[in-house]
């Protein structure tokens, strides 16, 4: 047998061989019974020098372990892909994670936009009394009989009708000043655009703030 190879084996046994050489020799050692037997005797020599009393030097421990492991599945299926790719995968794994997270976020946003109106968009729902149907609600009714409640329901301000406002003004001396002011300001802000005509038929408007 090659003396240089045996010399390398001795150095490898002592962990004094370069890693690249170790890789090559480990491959050969795992297959070459001659080298393996020599390797085993190196271990025996060390055990004798260390005077490991009570230890059987010819114990067939390796053979017993080997016999048990014959029935075991090889570890390759569990570890090989991770081990082979581990160093190369490491740098792009965080980027891949971020890309997946961004994709999920984008899909979620697009899905939400199809499910609910945009935040900030005016939500105007007209609730009508029977017999007084606006054109908007008529169109909606024509499309669908069902009514979907918006996800974020805005606080609605009930605006009184003109008759009610007049009533409140007439009886203002008997009402709470704060409640009166709120009611009047709500009434003022609900006025129709300049020149426009407020539909008298509409009893109540709900305005999203």
């Amino acid at each position, binding site marked *: 047998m090659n003396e240089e190879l045996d010399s390398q084996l001795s150095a490898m046994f002592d962990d004094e061989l370069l890693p690249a050489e*170790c890789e090559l020799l480990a491959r050969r050692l*795992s297959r070459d019974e001659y080298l393996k037997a020599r390797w085993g005797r190196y*271990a025996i020599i060390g055990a004798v020098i260390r005077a490991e009393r*009570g230890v059987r030097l010819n114990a067939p421990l390796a053979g017993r372990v080997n016999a048990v492991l014959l029935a075991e599945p090889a570890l390759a299926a569990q570890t090989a892909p991770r081990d082979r790719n581990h160093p190369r995968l490491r740098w792009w794994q965080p980027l891949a994670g971020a890309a997946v997270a961004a994709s999920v976020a984008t899909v979620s946003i697009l899905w939400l936009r199809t499910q609910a109106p945009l935040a900030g968009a005016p939500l105007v729902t007209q609730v009508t009394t029977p017999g007084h149907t606006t054109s908007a609600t008529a169109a909606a009714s024509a499309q669908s009989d069902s009514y979907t409640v918006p996800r974020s329901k805005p606080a609605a301000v009930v605006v009184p009708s003109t008759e009610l406002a007049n009533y409140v003004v007439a009886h203002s001396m008997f009402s709470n000043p704060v409640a009166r002011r709120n009611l009047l300001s709500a009434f003022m802000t609900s006025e129709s655009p300049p020149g426009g005509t407020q539909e008298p038929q509409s009893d109540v408007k709900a305005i999203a703030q």
Partner: protein
Amino acid sequence: MSADASDLSLVRRVQRGDKGAFDALVLKYQHKLVKLVMRYVRNPAEAEDIAQEAFIKAYRALPQFRGDSAFYTWLYRIAINTAKNAVVSRDRSPVEYDLDRNNNDESYDMQGRMKDSETPEGLVLTDEIRSTVNAAIDALPEDLRTAIVLRELEGLSYEEIAAAMDCPVGTVRSRIFRAREAIDRRLREVFEGGLGRAEELG
């Protein structure tokens, strides 16, 4: 030189499905592991059983071994835990009283050595191996003997041995290799020739 590179290269091969590489690890550490386990159990045969169990556990756990610590440190930890568990489970089992143990500890030790798988021939062979190796070491030139003893007994690195012996690292490597070769030559004859070869060689 990276520490544990040799073990790591074998471990990586095992992780890729090469069982033959695990054989090399068992061959390298079996005596050390049995010696370690014998701190917990006195019987050599029982210590071998525990060491065997530890090796099998280590094999099954190798996919989780990342190489953060040295392989032998990891292996020793498994062996210690296995030995402790074995002692606990043995203590829970019914006690077998050995009258001889109280009267004569040496006698018990001998019985322990003879238990189970050990045979008189096996004991003789162990003694023969030991005497052969010791005789071969005594026959080595001084520089070779010093180098191998510093390595195996003191656990010094090649660099430390080079400093101690005042010679280059390459010379240390060569001396240790030649020492091993000389001892191995005689040891091989014992294994190949069977019992009684040591006496002939001596």
